[in-house]
C-alpha cells in the first residue's frame, strides 16, 4: 500500500509532517533490524555456513537427537499439565466471584517475575542431596535433581502462568450467559463446558499453548540449574546448544539453534493468527 493512499484514508485528521513520519519509520525499522532481524538472520547464516551436509550431520549426531527427544518429552509433560491447570483456574476465576481473587491472580503470575535461575534453584533446595528431601530420596534411590524429573519440574514452573493468564481475561469478557442458557436447557456441566465454553475459548487456548510450548522447549536458565549437564542424558536442546558453543563447535551449535529459531518463527505465526481470531471472536460477541 502506498503512503499517499494510506494517509488519505487515515482516520486520524492530524498527523506529523511527511519527513517526520518517514524519519520515525526509519528509526523504528533500523532499530528492529539491528536488534531482531539481524540476530535471526545470523542464526541461519551461521548454521548453513559450511553447507547443507555439515548442517544435517550436526543434527543427526546422537547427542543432538537425544537432546531433541528429551526436549519433546519435557514439553509433552509440562504443556498438558499447565493447559489443564490453565483451563481449570480460568473457569474458577472468570466464572465465579470469591474473596481473595486478586491475590490468587497475583500468585499465578509469580513464576514470570522470578529469575529463571531461582526457578531452578528452588528445586535443588528441595530435592538436591543437601535439600529437604535429599537424604530420603537417596535412600530410596530416586533421582529428581540432575535428572529428567527435575528438568520437567523446572519447566512446569517457568511455563506455569501462560495458559491461565491468556484464558482468564478472555473468559471474563465472555461472561456466563451462554453457559447459563445451556444449563437451563438441560445440559450437564461437562456438556456445557465442551459444547459451549470450549468453542468460545478455542483460539485463546491455542494462543496460550503455543507460547507455553515455546518457552517449555526453549527454557535455558532454570533447566540449566537442575540438569547437571550430562551429555546425551540430561541435556535439552538449549543446553546442548550451549555445550556445542562452548566447545567452539559453532556450526553445530548454530545448526541446533536453528531448530529452535524455526520453532520461534512458527510460534510467532500461529500466535499472530490466534490473536487475530480471538479479536474477531470478541468483536462478534
Amino acid at each position, binding site marked *: 500500500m502506498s*503512503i499517499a493512499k494510506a*494517509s488519505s484514508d487515515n482516520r486520524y*485528521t*492530524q*498527523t*506529523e509532517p511527511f519527513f517526520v513520519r518517514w524519519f*520515525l*519509520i526509519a*528509526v*523504528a*525499522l533500523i*532499530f*528492529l533490524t539491528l536488534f*531482531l532481524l*539481524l*540476530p*535471526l538472520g*545470523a542464526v541461519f547464516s551461521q548454521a548453513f555456513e559450511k553447507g547443507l551436509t555439515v548442517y544435517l550431520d550436526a543434527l543427526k549426531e546422537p547427542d543432538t537427537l537425544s537432546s531433541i527427544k528429551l526436549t519433546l518429552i519435557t514439553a509433552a509433560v509440562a504443556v498438558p499439565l499447565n493447559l489443564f491447570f490453565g483451563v*481449570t483456574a480460568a473457569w*474458577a476465576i472468570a*466464572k465465579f*466471584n470469591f474473596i481473595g481473587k486478586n491475590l*490468587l491472580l497475583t*500468585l*499465578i*503470575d509469580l*513464576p514470570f*517475575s*522470578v529469575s*529463571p*535461575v*531461582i526457578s531452578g*534453584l528452588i*528445586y535443588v*533446595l528441595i530435592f*538436591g542431596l543437601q*535439600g*529437604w528431601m535429599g537424604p530420603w530420596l537417596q535412600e530410596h534411590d530416586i533421582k529428581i535433581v540432575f535428572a529428567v524429573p527435575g528438568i520437567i519440574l523446572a519447566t512446569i*514452573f517457568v511455563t*506455569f502462568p501462560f495458559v491461565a493468564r491468556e484464558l482468564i481475561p478472555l473468559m471474563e469478557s465472555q*461472561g456466563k450467559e451462554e453457559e447459563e442458557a445451556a*444449563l437451563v436447557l438441560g445440559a450437564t*456441566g461437562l456438556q456445557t*463446558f465442551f459444547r459451549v465454553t470450549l468453542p468460545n475459548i478455542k483460539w485463546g487456548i491455542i494462543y496460550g499453548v503455543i*507460547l507455553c510450548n*515455546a518457552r517449555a*522447549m*526453549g527454557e*535455558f*536458565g532454570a533447566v*540449566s540449574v537442575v540438569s547437571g549437564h550430562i551429555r546425551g542424558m540430561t541435556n535439552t536442546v538449549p543446553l546442548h546448544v*550451549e555445550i556445542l558453543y562452548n566447545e567452539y563447535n559453532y556450526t553445530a*551449535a*548454530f545448526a541446533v*539453534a536453528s531448530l*529452535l529459531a524455526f520453532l*520461534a518463527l512458527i510460534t*510467532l*505465526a500461529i*500466535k499472530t493468527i490466534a490473536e487475530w481470531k480471538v479479536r474477531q471472536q470478541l468483536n462478534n460477541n
Partner: protein
Amino acid sequence: MIQRKKHNNVLPGFGPSLGFTIFYLSVIVLIPLSALVFRAAGLTWGEFIDTVTAPRVLASYKVTFGSAIIAACINSVFGVIVAWVLVRYRFPGRRIVDALVDLPFALPTAVAGITLATIYSPNGWIGKILEPHGIKIAFTPLGIILAMTFIGLPFVVRTVQPVIEEIEVELEEAAVCLGANRLQTILRVIVPLLLPSVITGFALSFARGVGEYGSIIFIAGNMPMVSEITPLLIITKLEQFDYRGATAIACVMLLASFSMLLVINLLQRWTRRFAE
C-alpha cells in the same frame, strides 16, 4: 456491561476447579518458593548479611541493576517509537514487523545469547564495523546492556501499543480546534496519556532484565567485579556446592523481584484508571 450475580451462581464446578487451582499452585509454585525462604532463615543474620554484601556480590548487583536500568531506558525510547509507528503509520511490511516484535518472547534465550555474541564479537557482522572505532560490545558490560535491551523490547511495545490504539481522535481534534499545533498536541495531550503505560513498560522491561540469564552469559564475558551478573553468581555458588551462599543471594533477588511485581501491579492499575 455483563451483569454479575453474586449469589445463586448456577454454573457447576466451582469447588473442584478452585480446589485444583490452589493445590497445583501450592505444589508447583508456593511450596518450592517458600523452601528458598526457609533455607535462608536457617542462616544466621550475620552470615546472611556478610554473604549478600560481599564485594563481589555488591559488584554484581551494580552490574545487573545498572545494566537493566540503561536497557529499560533504551527500550522506553525506541519501544514508544516502534509502537507509535506501528499504530499510526502505514508502510509496506507493517504486519510482519508487528509480529516480529515478539521474537524475543519466542526465541529461546540461549539462541539469542550465542547469536548476539557472534554478531557483536570483534569479527562478527556488527562487531567488525565497530572494532576499528574502538567500540567493543561483546565480552564487555555493554554486551549485557545489549542482551537486556533485546529481551526487554517487546514489554514496552506491547504495553504502550494498545494505549496508543485507544487514544480518542476527538482529543487531538479538540486540541487543534483550541489552536494547538501538532507539537503542542503531542506534548500536552498525547505524552500525558502515554506516560503511565511507558512507565509500566519500563518497569516490566527492567524486571525482566534483572532476572535474565541465558541471553547474557554468552555475551557478557563474565568477569568477576566487572561483567558478572547476579544470576550467574548464584549458579557459580551452586557449582561450588555453596548452597548457603546461593540461597542468601537468591533471597535478595527474590525480594527485589517481589518489590518490582508490587510496583508493576500498582502501575498497571494506574494505567488502567488512566485508560478509563
